[in-house]
């Protein structure tokens, strides 16, 4: 074979290699994008919605404790029960996945503390019981944020 022919073969091999590398790079980028989009839809958006709902309820409960606001205790309880049910359903769903796991798993995110605080809220100790429930809701909000951070794909 002539030198020119060898050079042509070498260039063809290099060109093929470059195409292969580029293909792998694109695949990897697409894979990452897919994971990021999936994470956003399955984990991030629902948890951000819960964080907002929890924080809104904390404000409403604080208002109730200060004899302000227009929501009564049964309405606040009902709202918490709705949030809690939806959140527990999502936490169970996420705990079944092997990807998107925060350190220690989703099962560590529990509504127990808030359940307890809201179940004992009463008119007699309105300010104190509202303030306790608000603190528990704030803690739950922080633990949701932390779990979200831990689970975020790199």
């Amino acid at each position: 074979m002539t030198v020119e022919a060898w050079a042509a073969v070498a260039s063809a091999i290099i060109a093929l290699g470059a195409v292969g590398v580029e293909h792998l790079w694109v695949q990897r980028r697409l894979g990452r994008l897919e994971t990021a989009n999936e994470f956003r839809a399955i984990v991030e958006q629902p948890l951000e919605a819960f964080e907002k709902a929890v924080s809104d309820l904390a404000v409403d409960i604080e208002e109730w404790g200060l004899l302000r606001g227009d929501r009564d205790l049964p309405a606040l309880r009902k709202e918490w029960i709705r949030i809690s049910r939806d959140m527990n359903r999502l936490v169970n769903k996420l705990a079944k996945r092997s990807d998107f796991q925060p350190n220690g798993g989703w099962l560590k995110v529990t509504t127990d503390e808030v359940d307890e605080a809201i179940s004992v809220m009463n008119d007699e100790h309105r300010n104190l019981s509202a303030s306790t429930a608000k603190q528990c809701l704030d803690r739950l909000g922080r633990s949701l944020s932390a779990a979200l951070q831990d689970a975020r794909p790199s």
Partner: protein
Amino acid sequence: MATVDLARLTKNEVSMLTGHERGVQARALFSLDSLDVQDDVVRIVAPTNLDTITPSFVQGFLARSISQLGRDRLLTKYDFSTLPAALREDFVTGIERLAMHARRSAAIH
């Protein structure tokens, strides 16, 4: 058929059943350990003013049953069909949580 009436716990005063420890106490009150070894189906009924049963309560209430019977047998042993849909779902959520804990600890050991 045996019946577990949750009204014995709520006494028309409580609308939320919460807490693992309270679940464990309720389990003792209704003698679920002995009901679990009998052939009878156990029907769970609830008063109309009960709004929610939290996963932690369910976990305290049924943890020993799930380790005794397993998830599937537990779901046939206990009859939740007369409960309102929301309370039925509360039980299912708690039972799923128990089953996941059991799977995780089995995977670790």
